[in-house]
């Protein structure tokens, strides 16, 4: 039996369901295109309760996390939420995650559903005595509110003045009267928030359901279909498809998460090999002239094989195929023309720097007033 989130009854009544990472989740409520465009133009809500949430607590929590990720932890201010990576000894990416610094000795760690057990084992095997690692996945809900209208939609419920919460900041407050943790984060490319509703559980889901239904009055419920097309349009990698245990941060084009000069974390020694040379393959974005490039499709240049597509979709905004791919770094410059074999037909595409949408018109950097 697949697991369910606290909002399952709502999904079952309103959405086409699909199984993802062991959870019965909404794939779409109306259509992926409608939900996708609602997020780009207004506001959408996503049940992301399937993502695993741990609290690392204790005076050794900072030191512990410092040893786990390539991003400086001690130096982060209180109330900071940051994207980083869990690495193995070879520098390969075990998972990508968000860490929220709630107090000097207390952190919220949010990881991918599909990797929850692997991550927990990895962290437990390195946890010092005195550190507590509480799994809050079952006892909380998590709702993403995304889009240019997200702040207005969430503000109606939140005690906190959201205009004071900057991007990649977090704060504990109340939402619709429920204890909650709000971070100004998300995975759509848009401005938005992720709200962890505390003390929700399957036996007492009323708090989470109340938050969801009140948000649904001003935001469009969105399923995993739109979540995937939105993150692809923004060029954000999906662990398990675009990045994995055999991809290091340089190959993943995520070296920016590595704080300059930081050492002593798991994987640091393996990554020092890049001091003199870049990676042989690298993650890139790709826009198609025609056809939709999908996972596993071959990418060709004049000399033969350039690499392959790691995930792709049809962009509802561009009305074109967009994809992430892993290509030979020696011919990976932006603008490089490539061929993609789409079911034996060669279609043209170009290596393109994501996000794939016009950043003046869409995404969190858009000019105000649009």
């Amino acid at each position: 039996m697949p697991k369910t989130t606290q909002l399952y009854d709502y999904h079952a009544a309103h959405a086409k369901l699909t199984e993802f990472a062991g959870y019965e989740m909404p794939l779409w409520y109306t259509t992926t295109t409608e939900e996708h465009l609602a997020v780009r133009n207004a506001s959408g809500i996503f049940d992301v309760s399937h993502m695993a949430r741990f609290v690392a607590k204790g005076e050794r929590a900072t030191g512990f996390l410092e040893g786990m990720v390539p991003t400086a932890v001690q130096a982060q201010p209180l109330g900071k939420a940051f994207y980083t990576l869990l690495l193995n000894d070879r520098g390969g990416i075990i998972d990508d995650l968000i860490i929220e610094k709630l107090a000097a000795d207390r952190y919220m760690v949010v990881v991918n559903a599909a990797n929850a057990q692997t991550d927990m084992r990895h962290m437990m095997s390195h946890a010092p005595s005195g550190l507590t690692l509480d799994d809050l996945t079952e006892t909380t809900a998590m709702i993403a509110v995304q889009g240019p209208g997200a702040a207005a939609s969430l503000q109606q419920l939140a005690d906190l003045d959201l205009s004071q919460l900057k991007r990649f900041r977090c704060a504990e407050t109340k939402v619709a009267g429920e204890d909650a943790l709000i971070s100004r984060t998300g995975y759509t490319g848009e401005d938005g928030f992720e709200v962890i509703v505390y003390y929700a559980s399957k036996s007492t889901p009323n708090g989470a359901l109340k938050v969801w239904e009140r948000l649904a009055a001003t935001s469009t419920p969105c399923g995993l279909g739109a979540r995937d097309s939105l993150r692809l349009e923004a060029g954000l990698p999906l662990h398990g498809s675009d990045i994995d245990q055999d991809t290091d941060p340089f190959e993943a084009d995520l070296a920016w998460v590595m704080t300059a000069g930081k050492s002593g974390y798991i994987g640091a020694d393996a990554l020092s090999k890049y001091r003199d040379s870049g990676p042989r393959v690298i993650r890139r974005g790709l826009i198609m002239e025609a056809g939709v490039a999908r996972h596993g499709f071959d990418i060709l240049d004049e000399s033969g094989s350039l690499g392959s597509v790691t995930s792709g979709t049809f962009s509802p905004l561009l009305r074109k195929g967009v994809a992430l791919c892993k290509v030979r770094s020696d011919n990976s410059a932006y603008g490089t023309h490539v061929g993609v074999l789409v079911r034996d037909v060669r279609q043209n595409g170009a290596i393109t720097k994501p996000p794939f949408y016009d950043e003046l018109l869409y995404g969190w950097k858009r000019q105000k007033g649009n």
Partner: protein
Amino acid sequence: MEVHGYQVPEGLLYTKEHEWAKKEGSVVKIGITDYAAKTLNDVVYVTSPKPHSTVEKSKSMGTVESIKAVSEVYSPISGTVTKVNADLDSHPELVNKSPYSEGWLVEVAPSNFATESRSLMDAGAYAAYLNTLLAK
């Protein structure tokens, strides 16, 4: 008739892969069913065989692609393509909006309709088939 919210019109013949065939004089129109269209959710590309090419019963004759996935279309009957629905190039969403009329895919001059149509389901049989599929 309607099964679990999916339209199954009378007078058409159906496959287990959710294509339909409709005899119109000497030709047969082919498309995908309401169930197939709704399962794909939002169709963004349709590839069909060219006019004058031949299609073979139960063999792939094209694809219907949604945001999430691409799925093969298997021809319900054998024959020669006489017309292709060119409207789908600019309006692939017609497959969702109107799977049994404006969203048709191709028109075929059948080569062996009398025999081949016997293995297709009528509306009643397809409705029953959908019922068993969706009861799981």
